[in-house]
């Protein structure tokens, strides 16, 4: 009891250096937890991007390139898949569903994806979760758009707004399709995947914004150009999503049974009329993460080094403090404190410092999560969960505390061997 009181008073007496030690520990705990959280969440965000899709088909290119462009909206594919090939392949036995997607347009830097209503029923992410609507519903007319949650948040759109889609990627595109505004009819719930950053329009509208008309609607479109028939033309479009472009970027497929996957994939890769490529997203996602794994390893290394440096910093401070405290310890010895009591005192002090440091570190960590979480979500696409400390994180903190405690035993041992004659002879 007296030892605890002495430790407390002595720590208070050395406020400045104790505060710095605390801060070092707190910051390293915060960094370790943050880096680890980013590492873990990056991995899960990544593998949660797509789920339940057996095969992605696009023009022949690299596996990873096809995955990046079709799922992550990164990069372009110059070639597409012709509508005939799409229909041919998806009519094969065993195909349960298919989602055609057409990319290449953007709205204020956000990707625009042309697709069919199947997208909203069959697209899955994370653990086979379906997309769901936060507000509104799927598009039912050619000039309607469904927004990903982040698009709606970031650009401040609400249901009923009219927006203009530009041709090509990037928000500096000069070629806006002012004549074809789209009406927001639905906003999806957040998924933590690229879907959040996507505007979904009917596939039939893709050719429309490119100045042309859906292949099977050429006549209607001509009508639309006459002012006096505008109302009529719009009415026509409203109930009509059956149009399709000549070409799509890629399509996703699900099969009756996974057993079909390899066979259909072989058929696609050997398809004569067009050079196509079918990839299994789960396999390619793993490959892609394998490439990124070096980043993961570096992050892990960083965490370890951060902790090591702060522990060494703590040891330095403790040892420096100890030589200053030699007199204090000697006084305690002279009033009757036994060596083991000094040992307990010093190790208790470092444990206390460590404990408070870890607590402050956790507080800083949550502060960082609250302030930095949305930034990470919007800039790196990593959805950060703000939750209680996980078992893994608690283990990390435990490891740090144990390491700190062990390091604290070094000065404690030195204190143990400080001789009593120290206290009797020091003359200051």
């Amino acid at each position, binding site marked *: 009891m007296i030892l605890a009181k002495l430790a407390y008073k002595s720590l208070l007496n050395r406020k400045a250096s104790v505060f710095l030690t605390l801060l070092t520990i707190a910051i390293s705990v915060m960094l370790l937890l943050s880096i680890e959280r980013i590492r873990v969440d990056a991995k899960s965000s990544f593998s949660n991007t797509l789920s339940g899709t057996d095969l992605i088909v696009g023009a022949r290119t690299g596996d990873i390139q096809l995955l990046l462009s079709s799922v992550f909206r990164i990069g372009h594919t110059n070639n597409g898949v012709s509508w005939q090939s799409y229909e041919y392949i998806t009519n094969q036995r065993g195909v349960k569903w298919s989602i055609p997607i057409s990319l290449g347009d953007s709205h204020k830097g956000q990707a625009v994806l042309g697709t069919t209503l199947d997208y909203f029923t069959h697209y899955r992410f994370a653990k086979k979760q379906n997309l769901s609507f936060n507000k509104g519903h799927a598009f039912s007319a050619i000039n309607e758009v469904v927004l990903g949650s982040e698009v709606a948040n970031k650009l401040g759109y609400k249901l009923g707004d009219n927006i203009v889609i530009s041709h090509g990627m990037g928000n500096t595109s000069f070629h806006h399709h002012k004549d074809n505004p789209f009406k927001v009819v639905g906003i999806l719930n957040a998924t933590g995947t690229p879907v959040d950053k996507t505007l979904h329009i009917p596939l039939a509208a893709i050719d429309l914004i490119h100045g042309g008309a859906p292949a099977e609607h050429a006549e209607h479109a001509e009508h639309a150009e006459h002012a006096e028939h505008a109302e009529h033309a719009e009415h026509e479009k409203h109930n009509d999503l059956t149009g399709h472009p000549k070409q799509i970027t890629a399509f996703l497929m699900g099969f009756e049974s996974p057993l079909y996957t390899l066979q259909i994939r072989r058929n696609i890769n050997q398809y004569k009329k067009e050079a196509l490529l079918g990839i299994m997203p789960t396999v390619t996602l793993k490959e892609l993460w394998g490439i990124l794994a070096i980043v993961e390893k570096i992050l892990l290394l960083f965490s370890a080094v951060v902790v090591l440096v702060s522990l060494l910093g703590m040891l330095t401070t403790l040892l420096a403090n100890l030589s200053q405290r030699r007199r204090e310890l000697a*006084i*305690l010895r002279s009033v009757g*404190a036994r060596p083991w009591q000094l040992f307990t005192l010093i190790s208790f002090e470092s444990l206390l410092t460590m404990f408070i440091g870890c607590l402050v570190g956790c507080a800083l960590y949550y502060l960082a999560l609250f302030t930095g979480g949305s930034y990470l979500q919007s800039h790196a696409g990593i959805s950060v969960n703000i939750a209680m400390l996980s078992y893994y994180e608690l283990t990390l903190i435990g490891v740090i505390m144990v390491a700190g405690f062990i390091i604290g035993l070094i000065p404690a041992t030195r204190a143990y061997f400080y001789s009593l*004659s120290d206290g*009797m002879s020091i003359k200051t």
Partner: protein
Amino acid sequence: MMIDLKNITFKWHKNDNKPTLTISELVIKKGERVFLHGPSGSGKSTLLTLLAGINTATSGDIFILNKNLNTLSNTNRDVFRADHIGYIFQNFNLLPYLTPIENVILGCQFSKSRQKTALKQSATLNQEATRLLNALGLTEQYHKKDVATLSVGQQQRVAAARAFIGSPELIIADEPTSALDTNNRESFIKLLFEQAKHSNSTLVFVSHDESLQPLFDRSINLISLQENI
């Protein structure tokens, strides 16, 4: 018998030719107030470290309260010192982060027997510390002040109170008055005597200042003590 030294020699290092200290006999009775003096280098401090069991004699026996310190283990010597000896240092050795009261209480916090004795005197350790500080002439307004703001004389009173708390049988004072002027010296020593009487302690007072000699029951010149061989 409080202190009984027989044929003591002490060498700092085993290979030293001449022992630093050689005492054939020194006996101090219970309740005595002994003045131990001698010029610098005469071995005063060395003798005190032997009496307090900080160092052990190279040869010979040291009995304190009829216990042979040489036969005690390090740990037992620590316990013995904490229980039976109050030490007033030349340089006070107060802990800067404790108040005067807390510094005084510290004197009995590592010894159960002294704590018990202190609680026989007053209801709480706090009260006992207050009583001692008052008795030694430190008025209450200073009892909870920062130790560093106290004057040398005031710090000396705190150090003395710390040695006296729990009434140890032996009080060793190592040049405690060297920083005080003559008037203060005498009044301080008188307060020490009062306390020693109050707590039935034997007082061994070390100084090179022979003018204090008449105040004590007995005075021992360390030089002549060593020449008796």
